[in-house]
């Protein structure tokens, strides 16, 4: 089933999105952030926390502040060249007060570069090895066909999460996402070690990533199909999470170019710079991003917001392309959030989902279940989830977040997840090729709705192009939220690069982009 949509209009929308992103790229190229610099340290092998629990990466970046505009790599390279210590040992020495990074600001550039060469190479090799290993495992342990069933675990305790994740995989889940503790997106550091306390989710830490990866690898071997692991590269530590995900072979990351700005009041400049470095890493590590367009629909009327969803998808795609991501890595978001009391709401959902499928034919679309109109009525909720499942299989969505009948009640119980997966498997099995067997009525309600949404989205993008993206966000164009370019959380962590700024990983990653 194909909608008749105007291909020229789609091209215009895509061109607009590229034009929207181009001036932001110029800004990004001239700036870095504390979290990008901390990522550089993490990639160099700096891990752990000091006696007060502050991550060493944060400690070092704070310690280097006056020279940070040249990039933390100079200081580290200089320190290694002079002391002969490894990055981790230097971090320890700085944390205990035995070493001042500022001492090494005058080490010659060539010596500093040479000192980091092998460490940079080792990290890049680890990332590449992980990317290859994913391909190998997927070859050996093939996934069932999409929509890939994605479920969330969120107990707050990584060990409980592990139990829930393995159980969900055994029940048929193909992707496990570990939801983060609600406050984590606003923390300007990444917590450390295995964690057992969290609210509404479990902290994203490198050790938690490792624990979950190991458990899912084991269950993948047992089931003979690869189970993917997802976390969140959003908030103030977006690049660091992307780093940890690359190092621990996560398969997907929630990663949106504007979500933090609009919905978490994170500074836009910080977000734009951070998302770019994150996506450079994601491109190299073969990670699939999931964008957050569902948020437009949960915070406002889903029928009204449909054009904003498509416009945001196109902007997210343009930012991802700018960082060298392939279409196959760009999981654009949408959600089944139209009011169930609206007559023909199902038709509008199909129009939106099929429109995204046709506009982004090679992208693994991420489809989110009803949440906003879920109540304590689990029976109706289960039914709404079934309609969502039908829409997903009909319109060939790729990443399918299974709706829980207990959404809006509690974080899922073991059997909530099992029931959700059974629901999806039943509906998707019984209607597997339904979409191939039917055609849309030309000029009918669904087709007209899709054409309307496309036209409105392109008109919206044209307005944003004319006005500028930062100015548009300031002018409340997206999600009815106004954010100023220098307002919001994390702005003080954005800085202009000096003429001799150096980030060896950005160089290596950009190299792969241009090679591609």
């Amino acid at each position, binding site marked *: 089933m194909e909608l008749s949509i105007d291909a020229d209009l789609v091209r215009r929308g895509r061109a607009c999105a590229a034009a929207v992103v181009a001036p932001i790229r110029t800004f990004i190229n001239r700036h870095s952030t504390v979290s990008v610099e901390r990522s550089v340290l993490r990639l160099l092998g700096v891990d752990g926390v000091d006696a007060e629990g502050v991550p060493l990466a944060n400690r070092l970046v704070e310690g280097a502040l006056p020279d940070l505009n040249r990039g933390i790599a100079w200081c580290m390279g200089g320190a290694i060249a002079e002391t002969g210590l490894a990055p981790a040992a230097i971090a320890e020495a700085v944390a205990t007060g035995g070493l001042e990074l500022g001492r090494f600001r005058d080490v010659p550039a060539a010596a500093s570069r040479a000192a980091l060469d092998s460490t940079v190479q080792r990290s890049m090799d680890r990332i590449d090895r992980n990317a290859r290993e994913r391909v190998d495992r997927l070859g050996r342990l093939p996934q069932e066909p999409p929509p890939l069933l994605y479920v969330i675990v969120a107990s*707050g305790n990584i060990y409980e999460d592990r139990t829930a994740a*393995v*159980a*969900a995989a*055994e*029940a048929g889940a193909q992707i496990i996402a570990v939801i983060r*503790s*609600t*406050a984590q*997106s*606003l923390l300007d550091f990444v917590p450390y070690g295995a964690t057992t306390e969290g*609210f*509404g989710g479990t902290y994203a830490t490198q050790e938690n990533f490792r624990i979950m990866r190991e458990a899912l690898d084991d269950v993948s071997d047992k089931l003979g199909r690869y189970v993917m692991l997802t976390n969140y590269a959003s908030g103030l530590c977006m690049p660091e999470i992307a780093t940890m995900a690359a190092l621990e072979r996560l398969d997907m990351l929630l990663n949106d170019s504007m979500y933090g700005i609009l919905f*978490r*009041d994170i500074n836009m400049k910080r977000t734009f710079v951070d998302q770019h470095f994150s996506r450079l890493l994601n491109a190299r590590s073969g990670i699939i991003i999931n964008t957050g367009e569902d948020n437009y629909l*949960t*915070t*406002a*009327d889903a029928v009204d917001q449909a054009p904003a969803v498509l416009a945001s998808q196109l902007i997210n795609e343009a930012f991802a392309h700018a960082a060298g991501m392939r279409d196959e890595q760009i999981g654009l978001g949408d959600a089944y959030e139209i009011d169930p009391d609206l007559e023909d709401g199902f038709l509008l959902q199909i129009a939106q989902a099929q429109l995204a499928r046709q506009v982004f034919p090679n992208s693994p679309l991420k489809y989110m279940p009803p949440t*906003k109109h879920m*109540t*304590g009525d689990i029976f109706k909720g289960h039914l709404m989830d079934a309609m969502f499942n039908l829409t997903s299989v009909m319109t060939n969505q790729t990443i399918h977040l299974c709706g829980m009948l207990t959404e*809006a*009640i*509690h*974080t899922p*119980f*073991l*059997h909530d997840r*099992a*029931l959700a997966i059974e629901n999806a498997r039943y509906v998707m099995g019984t209607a597997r090729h339904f979409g191939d067997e039917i055609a849309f009525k030309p000029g009918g309600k669904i087709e007209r709705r899709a054409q309307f949404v496309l036209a409105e989205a392109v008109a919206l993008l044209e307005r944003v192009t004319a006005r500028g993206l930062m100015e548009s966000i300031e002018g409340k164009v997206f999600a009815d939220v106004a954010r100023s370019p220098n307002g919001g959380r994390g702005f003080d962590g954005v800085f202009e690069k000096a003429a001799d700024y150096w980030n060896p990983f950005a160089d290596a990653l950009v190299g792969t982009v241009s090679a591609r």
Partner: protein
Amino acid sequence: MNLVKPYGDARDDGAMQLSFTLPIPWSEAADEAARQLVAKMGFSDVSVVDGRAIAAGYSFFVVYARTTVAVDVDTIAVPSAAGNALDMDAVDALVHERVGRKIRIAGACIGTDAHTVGIDAILNMKGYKGDYGLERYRAFETFNLGSQISVDELVRFTKANDIDAVLASQVVTQKGSDIANFTALSELLEAEGVRDRVLLLCGGPRVTNLLAAELGYDAGFGRGTLPSEVATFIARRFSDTPQ
């Protein structure tokens, strides 16, 4: 006295449906374990209608059974804060006539909770289910502080801005975080000596008016609450009109 029991298809049959998971692999013995568990709860005619493995080492059951206990509904009184709502114009008129100034309202989703869906439904202009939010009322000056607002911040804002009514929202309830945050807010307002000066309201999908009273709040609003219900409660309180 009006004793009632659950109703299946006949008065006082006590019919109930239950579903749960046991951390054991499925077998016929697992079904029997489920049956015995429910019987131990005091149910009779226990029938395990579905039992199956949902993961290695976990089995899920659907059970029908009859309860022998009843409850006297005549002894139960739960005052709702949300009854007899006025519409927006009536609220505006009531406040205009009886209060003579705008009532200043601050709302926030407190603690680490990032879910603004509840507080936004009540405060934002657009409102919820076609019922306008408090920002649209002429009777109110509204400050929506948003999500992840610490209790300290909300109390500081309340003191600094002559707030008349404080609305605290909690959606995440994991490990009792909602109760802890609500309690912290009410205690801090008390400690800062402003509790008596403000109307203190809480809201969220798990909130009931009864819970609110236990936590020292003036009222609590649960799932499905409309903005006009909250508006009416506030307007009546400030105009000394019976709820």
